[in-house]
């Protein structure tokens, strides 16, 4: 049994962790860890759709790219995202997310500016993938 989402300590910012039996699942949970810092994901109405496509052979750079594309798309459309899907085909990553425009009733956490290369690691141990990095808040 593994915790799908976790956080680790960092002085000024926050470390996020996503875990899963597939690397894609670990990345999806890492995204959930990021967006859960901004609101209670259980409150998010999943009525808007965001598509993410990118190519990246390096799994660690792919994690940062995935998170930053989600953050960028969400901010550019003033959305909060609550559910994430990702598929990998070699260096090709195809993902999507659902959410809604920010509204008054949503809990306000802290804005995440971007995912950094600090504390960045994508590892597999005992059949569980773990994706982690520090995000700037």
């Amino acid at each position, binding site marked *: 049994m593994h915790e799908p989402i976790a956080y680790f300590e960092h002085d000024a910012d*926050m470390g996020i962790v996503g875990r899963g039996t597939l690397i894609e699942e670990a990345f999806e949970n890492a995204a959930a860890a990021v967006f859960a810092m901004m609101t209670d994901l259980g409150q998010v109405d999943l009525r808007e759709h965001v598509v993410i496509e990118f190519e990246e052979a390096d799994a660690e*750079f792919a994690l940062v790219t995935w998170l930053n594309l989600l953050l960028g798309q969400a*901010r550019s459309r003033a959305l909060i995202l609550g559910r994430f899907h990702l598929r990998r085909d070699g260096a090709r990553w195809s993902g999507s997310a659902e959410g809604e425009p920010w509204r008054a009733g949503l809990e306000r*956490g802290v804005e995440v500016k971007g995912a950094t*290369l*600090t504390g960045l690691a994508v590892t597999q141990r005992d059949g569980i993938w773990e994706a982690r990095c520090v995000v700037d808040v």
Partner: protein
Amino acid sequence: MDLARLKEINPWCHALTLLPGEARAPVRLYANAELLRGMDAKVLEQIANVARLPGLVGAAMTMPDAHWGYGFPIGGVAAFDAEAGGIISAGGVGFDIACGIRCLRTNLDRATLAPRLERLADLLFRAIPAGVGEEGEIKLSPGELDAVMRGGAQWALGHGYGVAADLDYIEERGCVAGAVPAEVSDLAKRRQRGEMGTLGSGNHYLEIQVVERIYDAAAAAAYGLAEGQVLVSIHCGSRGLGHQVGTDYLLTLAKAAGRLGIRLPERELACAPIKSPEGQQYLGAMNAAINIALANRQILTHLARAAFAEVLPGAELETLYDVSHNTCKVETHVVDGKPRRLHVHRKGATRAFGPGHAALPARYRAAGQPVIIGGSMGTGSWILAGNPEEQNGAFASASHGAGRAMSRHQALRKWHGRELIHELAVNGILIRTRSMRGAAEEAPGAYKDVDLVADTTEKAGLARRVALLRPKACVKG
């Protein structure tokens, strides 16, 4: 932080000793033993990594408020010479490019403010878009956004935000040269669409303050400060556009470093030679983001003035100074008796030009540049004055804030937002925020002792204390 590897130069400045076979430039930590002991060991590791980057001039340094960052520590200062193969690093500037503080002095005193404080705090909270998910009223077309990236606060002034005198008291008169909007990605531009004139989240704030004590009468007179006077400080940066520029170039520079054979001790130090295509692209994009930040603080100043005018007719809010603390700037500094053009990275460090510097407005030239150290919402902030460069010794840099003493996660475990806000109100400090989580993470107890930071900044010769400010009301992101 373990002090075993540090050698005391004086009680307020320490050097990192070299290990056998270790190849790097010198490292200087401006802090006393008490501040050093409270710093995470990562600060030392990160600044030692900075000292291994190509083309570094002098030492890699940390300011008294240093804490663990990404790539560079927060409070890190490093200067690079383009002619000596020097680099520019996105991790040396940070995601929130040109995050900084605009300080406004008012013609109000504590007694005038007191009966209107609550109404003013409420109105500012309604007028200033603050916190995650909040957008501003200004929506710019792509062409208009390009104009902001080129014009900074000067663009804002030209569109009715502020008064001409504001520009005299902003770094580079509110507009840095070298902005290249074409080097900013479409996604970065789209991220900014609704974010002009917004405060942001995290440690950003708009705070009403009162001058509690003057420490340097001459500099205070030059800055127009008196005990009991009301000030307003606005802490924010380049919003979504700057965040995306940081994001885009982190990977671009990390890959460039690999291709160009620059061995990075840590990938977050992503960098490229200043003269490389990638280095020049980042410089152009970063300067565009700096101008966005300067325009943003100019617009917020306008919104704050409008709120004050409604509650306190006759209130005048003049820009005391606006200075960024996440930048890389091209400056001339004397090194070994010779002037050199350097790219000075300040990540969580404030530029602190000394008396007589040509870049300062005439009114401040004798006193030196105002240096603003923003504290927590419950303790205080400081205004200091820049010292002559031979006394400063850190490429005219000084502290920028209190510096975190514990992580956000630790703070969340220790405080609850609603209780904290109540406690501060009981102590006469009004907090207005949409985020209880944010309030807890920003608890005053999560920060270092700002008075100790200011005192150490002065004793280290980085800048001298002018005025202590106490918070009265704070709009938090």
